[in-house]
């Protein structure tokens, strides 16, 4: 392989071998939901498991998103868990971070689920290559 070793093309190659947007969207979704809630830990503990779930679900969403990025071989499991968590945050975490996090997480999980490695290049890219 004769690809140049600059970090940009390295990153492109790294990105090509994992469901990059799926994992990234799921991670961002979890982060967004976490940002919408900052209830003090004392109150969370008073309310018990239900209060804790509000933090637990988005945290697990971030973890699933990162695992999709860094362990793409298991993407099916992570994306399934990711979609369930995303849907669950509607109940536990401010209506899924006021809908934004829920939508991002659902889209991210679906992208990760639908991603397949080693696909034919798109025709556009194929043509561009042939012209070069």
């Amino acid at each position, binding site marked *: 392989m004769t690809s140049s070793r600059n970090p940009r093309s390295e990153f492109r190659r790294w990105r090509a071998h994992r469901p990059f947007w799926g994992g990234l969207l799921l991670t961002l979704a979890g982060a967004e939901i976490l940002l919408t809630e900052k*209830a003090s830990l004392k109150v969370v503990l008073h309310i018990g498991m*239900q209060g804790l779930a509000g933090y637990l679900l988005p945290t697990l969403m971030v973890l699933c998103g990162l695992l999709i990025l860094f362990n793409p071989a298991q993407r099916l499991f992570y994306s399934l868990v990711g979609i369930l968590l995303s849907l669950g945050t509607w109940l536990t975490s401010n209506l899924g971070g006021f809908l934004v996090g829920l939508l991002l997480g659902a889209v991210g999980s679906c992208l990760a689920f639908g991603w397949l490695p080693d696909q034919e290049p798109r025709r556009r890219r194929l043509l561009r290559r042939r012209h070069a």
Partner: protein
Amino acid sequence: MASSSDASASHGSTPESSESGSATEGPDRRGRVRLRRAAVMAVPATAIAAGLMILTAQGALGVQFAISGMPFTVTATELNGTGFEQFGNLDNMAEDSPNAGDTGGQVLVVTSAIKNATLTKLCQSVDLGGTNLLITAGSGADKVQATNLTTDSTELSGDAAFDNIEIGNDASTLSKAGVQGNKGVFSQQADTVHIANLRQTNYATTAAVFKLPGLKLRFSDQGC
């Protein structure tokens, strides 16, 4: 398999046998999202999400709120509750919070806890700077119901009536709503509470399970 990276080499669809991350793949054989595969998950997920929202709007499902950091306003035309506690408290923001200003990251608040509450025409708005996120619920026949409602407010107004109220307890000895404050802090508690024309500016915290019949979530120029 697929060891040559020439674009002219293979045009047919190859089976998905080679796992991702194997170093032998050429740079142009990328992974890609197959729409039909993604739809296998997207369709049921959309259905479930729609179902959750409908159930919430009908009040069949409870939703939990834990918003904070920014002050937000809650209003209701009527609040009825059993198990009421109120005490002073000091809330700490996250370290280096942009909302801290010159307060040192601490806000003096009144914590109100209600074990079971029923609210009519609930309205909640968060000022996002320029626009308000507005949530309304309970304007129909079904009322908004909340359990273990805990709010940290800087302002609270309304016409209140209490049953069996005890004023001046130590905040650490409260028992009616299951929340305790710090030792040596003034507090009050009551068996039942009734507040008409409730208006609260909640600073830091509320965490509770809400049932929101007639839920409406939208952006608006005006708050509650």
